């Protein structure tokens, strides 16, 4: 059998395991990126809270305390290898507390927490890069901090960090392979089983590489599409008198005044 024939053989024989592995990899990557974004959003928002000058010392202390706690979380999970974190948490839980997390829970827990640590910094940066003028514009018409965040700052910050979310998704697709250390049957685990069974490392690696690439490439295209969609149309239509009257539900008297202008 030639190199290509062996590749075809692997695909044919192990198509189910490969698809399953790819499915698990994608499921973990997508779920954990989403959860990680939520964690990151929460942490990032807290990190950008500035206590008001006139707020009580107690609330100032709590904000400071929380922020410190969160930065420890961010620094620790960004600063240590995920593979070790996986082993630490998975085996730690079972040895210290006698709890068997199970492959899925452990995998999702570890990857989400990791993504969250990275996203927290990204979200913080995204929030800070929305110019302060817009916050002042919102304050000047009487909007409070919460309203300003939810209707003006966060939507823009979210758009700004979209490329980073895509980045994290792709990193997660690849990095789930470290979960094979706790026995998660994802794509890399499948590769190891196949190559172990057939002793055809090169061919199995080639097939698996191609699958990984298809997954990541499709994801980056899909993310691009969403980004474009969020940007809305590049052009706008000038509103005519008719559409104006229609959209506003104004009475005829109003239209008459406008036409006189």
């Amino acid at each position, binding site marked *: 059998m030639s190199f290509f024939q062996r590749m075809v053989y692997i695909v044919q024989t192990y198509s189910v395991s490969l698809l399953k592995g790819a499915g698990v990899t994608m499921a973990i990557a997508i779920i954990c990126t989403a959860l990680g974004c939520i964690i990151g959003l929460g942490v990032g928002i807290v990190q950008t809270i500035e206590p008001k*000058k006139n707020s009580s010392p107690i609330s100032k202390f709590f904000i400071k305390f929380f922020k410190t706690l969160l930065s420890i979380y961010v620094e620790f999970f960004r600063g240590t290898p995920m593979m070790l974190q996986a082993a630490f948490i998975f085996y730690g839980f079972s040895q210290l507390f006698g709890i068997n997390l199970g492959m899925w829970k452990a995998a999702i827990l570890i990857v989400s927490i990791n993504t969250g640590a990275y996203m927290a910094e990204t979200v913080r940066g995204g929030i800070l890069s929305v110019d302060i*003028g*817009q916050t*002042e*514009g*919102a*304050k*000047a*018409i*009487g*909007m*409070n901090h919460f*309203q300003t965040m939810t*209707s*003006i700052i966060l*939507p*823009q910050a979210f*758009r700004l960090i979209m490329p980073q979310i895509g980045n994290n998704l792709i990193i997660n697709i690849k990095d789930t392979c470290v979960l094979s250390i706790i026995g998660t049957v994802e794509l890399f685990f499948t590769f190891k089983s196949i190559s172990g069974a057939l002793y055809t490392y090169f061919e199995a690696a080639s097939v698996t590489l191609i699958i990984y690439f298809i997954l990541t490439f499709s994801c980056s295209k899909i993310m691009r599409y969403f980004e474009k969609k969020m940007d*809305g149309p590049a*052009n*706008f*239509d*000038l*509103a*005519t008198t008719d559409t*104006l009257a229609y*959209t*506003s*539900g*104004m009475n005829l008297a*109003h239209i008459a005044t*406008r036409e006189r*202008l």
Partner: protein
Amino acid sequence: MNEILKIEHLSKTFGNNVVLTDIDFEVKKGDVTSIIGASGSGKSTLLRCINLLETPTSGEVLFHGNKVAEGGIKEEDYRAKVGMVFQSFNLFNNHTVLSNCMLGQIKVLKRNKEEAKAQALKYLEKVGMAPYINAKPSQLSGGQKQRVAIARALAMDPEILLFDEPTSALDPETVGEVLDVMRTLAKEGTTMLVVTHEMSFARDISSHVVFMADGKIEEEGSSKDIFYNPQSARTKEFLTRFREDKQES
């Protein structure tokens, strides 16, 4: 007591940099007050203190006689009643022109959508921006952005409008369109407090002029008094410089 806004002994320091010292003046309903003065004299800081974007170091801002800083009126309510137009427009980039003018009405004044939309359109028409309701701020010119910003402020039905050099960031060709809108507002009796470097504009529209130098009010009076019969040497010098500038251009 018909003054809307009263500033009493207001001072502001940043670290050890004294920016405003003992500012005292008031704005009555229907007044168009211009604040003029050299760059760095503290004009923007004064407006920002009035709007609570900066906290005064000492002194008071009174709104209809209520101390604003001490919760005499809720911060958000006060700001809704005191409109502000910035040099850099500060429109919400993720919202359309129409939505920029509706957001505050819905969130702060709790108006319903139809009401807010009608009100927004009324003022967008007034500033000549009604055809652009579907545009995003990034798709507009500076003059257009500023007119939307004025409509956004007006849509809140403020009792007074603050302007901080509304035309300084604009191309010379578009300055006129914004000044025209402001002229119309002044004629209609809108209460305005305007920081500007456009001297002839200030002279023509103002009922009252405040000249600031080094963080203090050097001289104030009617537009006529300040521009044609200034008392202080510094005012004279400042205005002479402005006339020379004008002759050069």
